[in-house]
């Protein structure tokens, strides 16, 4: 084993710590595992482990027009949010990283405000504003609201990518005659593309999983998947939701692995 954390304490003396840590990890991961397994159950009763297996809950998910429409809305909104939030966040991160602006602290605080401000307040505020300008129950409204939620994640991810990049390379390109934009595109962006892609994936998943704001500003034909799930959970526990949840968990795993993979490509 590496010497990096070799204290004169044996692993055996630490068994209690490992046991405790493993229990907490189990607490974190068990609910997702249980849901994935139960989504393949053949019975309407909640049994674990299930006595018979089937794909009926997946059939009821993909076979239902309502669930399918809601899924399509969510995918559309998430893709558009990603497309809008990524360039906006990258541009802002570039400006913040330059560090020459005064009030960088205030700008940072403003851009990351949506992480801190209680979501419920953003929800009723957006609903109130949209009611005046007619953006409630529209895709545009959802994309704008989700972009604001996703922006801080793109900014933070890209800023941390830029931190480990030497901006002098871009200066060299400019001194050799490239204009600023092409210097960024040809020299800087290829080297921070992993952070940008990670940021984009985080933007996608933030939008796709967003519940509270969508609860207020989506409805009718633009009901998002999470809004429909929330309402379904309020009424009764339908095992179809286990199938949908499994799809969402798989989506998280895929996007997160992609982000990790890209992050390591540096």
């Amino acid at each position: 084993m590496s010497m990096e954390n070799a204290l004169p304490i044996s692993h055996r003396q630490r068994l209690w710590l490992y046991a405790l840590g493993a229990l907490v990890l189990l607490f974190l991961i068990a609910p997702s595992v249980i849901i994935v397994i139960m989504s393949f159950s053949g019975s309407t009763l909640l049994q674990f482990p299930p006595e018979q297996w089937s794909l009926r809950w997946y059939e009821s998910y993909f076979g239902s027009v309502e669930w399918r429409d809601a899924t399509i809305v969510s995918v559309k909104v998430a893709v558009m949010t990603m497309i809008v939030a990524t360039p906006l966040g990258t541009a802002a991160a570039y400006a913040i990283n330059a560090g020459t602006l005064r009030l960088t602290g205030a700008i940072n605080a403003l851009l990351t405000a949506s992480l801190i401000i209680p979501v419920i307040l953003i929800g009723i505020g957006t609903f109130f504003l949209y009611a005046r300008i007619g953006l409630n129950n529209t895709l545009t409204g959802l994309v704008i609201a989700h972009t604001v939620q996703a922006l801080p994640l793109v900014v933070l991810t890209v800023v941390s990518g830029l931190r480990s990049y030497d901006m002098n390379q871009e200066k060299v390109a400019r001194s050799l005659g490239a204009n600023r934009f092409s210097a960024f595109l040809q020299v800087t962006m290829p080297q921070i593309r992993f952070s940008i892609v990670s940021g984009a994936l985080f933007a996608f998943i933030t939008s796709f999983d967003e519940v509270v704001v969508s609860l207020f500003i989506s409805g009718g034909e633009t009901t998002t998947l999470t809004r429909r799930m929330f309402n379904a959970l309020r009424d009764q526990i339908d095992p179809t939701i286990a199938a949908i949840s499994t799809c969402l968990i798989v989506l998280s795993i895929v996007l997160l692995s992609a982000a990790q993979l890209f992050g390591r490509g540096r």
Partner: protein
Amino acid sequence: MSMQSAILPHAGARTLNADALHADARRETFGLLALLSPGLLLVFAVIIVPIGWLFWLSLFDETGSLSASNYARFFQQPSYIKTFLTTFKVAFAVTGACVVLGYPLAYMLSQLPRRAASICLILVILPFWTSVLVRTYAWLVILQRKGLINSWLIDLGVISQPLPLANNFAGVIIGMTHIMLPFLVLPLYASMKTIDIDCLRAGMNLGASPAATFRQIFFPLSLPGLASGVVIVFVLCLGFFVTPALMGGGKVIMWAMRIEQTTSLYSNWGAGAALGVVLLAVTLALLGLFQWLLGARATGVWSSR
């Protein structure tokens, strides 16, 4: 001669250069502001304007005249006071549970060899990026009256009546602890990784027992990370909506749920806005106090992956 011509215009060139540099710096600033403007504009339009508007609304009563009645309600109506008490009770309980569960986990992660730690870390990050709805649904399935835990315990003969685990205070605490735990573990782990192992070695070389080394060296050094985790968890708990709304069974009314009820159900925007404004003020005050005391930002959790 050539020397002279190089030196003589020097004084003039300096001011010329200064002007050019100045103009260049200004252009640079404008360029950077232009890059920031779309993002800032969006945040301004979707967050700052509506919240300002809500604040304005909260200053008027139902008849439309300027009054503090929306705020006076907080102290007069027992249902509001009960909501605040519930909210703080839940926030303290969840934060406490997160510390009890999260500290040992972060400590273990920081002591494991790198490979093992990164595998375990995935198990923390994955729930962090899984939908809150999915995780709340999972806990409903596990904890409800005919849920997994109750049917297991009844099958095993431990209990004869199902335990009330969901749709009450306990359910909300369990569900929210699960959602908040990564918010505590991730910053705490990041700060524990920066503790110099040589400090611990020195302590042990000088004859301290492992327990004393932990208590006197490691634990105090981990406190700033713990503090930032505690603050972010507490603040997020205060405004949390989804889990208490789904797992409280209508009995646990938290601050955010009261806001939703007041605006959506009773359409009393002034009262709802006042609740929101105070929630925001409490949140910002706690974060500001934290930043002032420790000089660190609590948003670190989102960039510490």
